[in-house]
């Protein structure tokens, strides 16, 4: 063609030498990274003055591609680290990227306690409905009757509703969206970055490589995305829907956003 290639300006937030990234073709984690950089760009925030934490899993690889200071390592202990960082540097913005395996299966107790304390962090949880990095095993967030690698006759367990858990535990800002909604995801991340207190953004994401292959028998990311869209509904519609229509589906939207005292080592005034 001979013309100069113009690159996406949002790549100024990314480490050039790390691209192309490690995620599979059509993975939702790459899209979440894209939405997050859009939110950073809209808020004019500098990721070099923030801390990003990732545990273990596909989603936890997201901060590796950002030009930022980051922790990466212990499975499920992202919020324990964030608590320690917030004790010593309360003004440092901390953003956590964690998958469903990281946050609600092995790190479930850390999440509940951090919600209860209302720790001032932003958690972006990418829910791809299985343990994708280890080969597509059944996870607490796998929908009922889904075929996965370890449940060849279908999962017999009901799934976890993470947003309801976080609300019950006392989180002050909880939202759920899907990767098929770029604008809503970006605006939710902007609200979460500006919110003072524990913000949980759950993004239901497609995993064409494992969940698509085992449960839906397709490797097309758009088909998996359509499956997710047909199994979710906007929470504003819930009054107009019957219980049968809502069965097995997840509501989407902003569930709670309120001001609460933030944990800073102790909430008692000395």
């Amino acid at each position, binding site marked *: 063609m001979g013309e100069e290639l*113009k690159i996406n300006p949002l790549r100024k937030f990314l480490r050039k030498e790390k691209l192309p990234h490690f995620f599979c073709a059509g993975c939702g984690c790459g899209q979440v990274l*894209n939405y997050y950089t859009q939110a950073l760009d809209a808020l004019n925030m500098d990721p070099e003055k923030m801390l990003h934490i990732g545990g273990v899993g596909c989603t936890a690889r997201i901060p590796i591609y950002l030009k930022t200071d980051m922790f990466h390592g212990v499975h499920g202990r992202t919020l324990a680290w964030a608590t320690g960082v917030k004790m010593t540097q309360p003004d440092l913005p901390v953003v956590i990227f964690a998958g469903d395996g990281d946050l609600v299966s092995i790190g479930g107790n850390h999440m509940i306690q951090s919600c209860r304390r209302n720790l001032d962090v932003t958690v972006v949880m990418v829910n791809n409905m299985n343990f994708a990095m280890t080969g597509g095993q059944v996870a607490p967030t796998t929908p009922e009757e889904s075929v996965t690698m370890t449940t060849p006759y279908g999962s017999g367990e009901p799934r976890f509703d993470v947003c309801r858990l976080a609300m019950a535990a006392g989180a002050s800002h909880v939202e759920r969206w899907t990767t098929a909604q770029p604008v809503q995801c970006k605006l939710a991340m902007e609200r979460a970055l500006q919110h003072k207190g524990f913000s949980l953004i759950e993004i239901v994401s497609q995993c064409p490589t494992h969940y698509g292959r085992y449960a839906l028998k397709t490797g097309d990311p758009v088909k998996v995305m359509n499956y997710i869209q047909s199994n979710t509904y906007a929470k504003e519609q819930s009054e107009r829907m019957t219980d049968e229509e809502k069965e097995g589906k997840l509501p989407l939207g902003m569930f709670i956003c309120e001001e609460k005292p933030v944990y800073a080592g102790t909430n008692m005034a000395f």
Partner: protein
Amino acid sequence: MAVYIDKELCKSCSMCVSLCPKNVFEITHAVNKKGYNYAAAPRQEECIKCKKCEKMCPDFAIYVE
């Protein structure tokens, strides 16, 4: 030229092909350094600049001017 594709970052997920409302993209038979058949935008004059592809590309490969 309005749609730029960084062929070395494309992973041939064909999300842009399926999501574009004006059918601007298609997957080529050419291969990039990583071995993927990258996407190209042969029908750029139809582009309405909704930027859906740019916002949703998982690989930061697309830029719409």
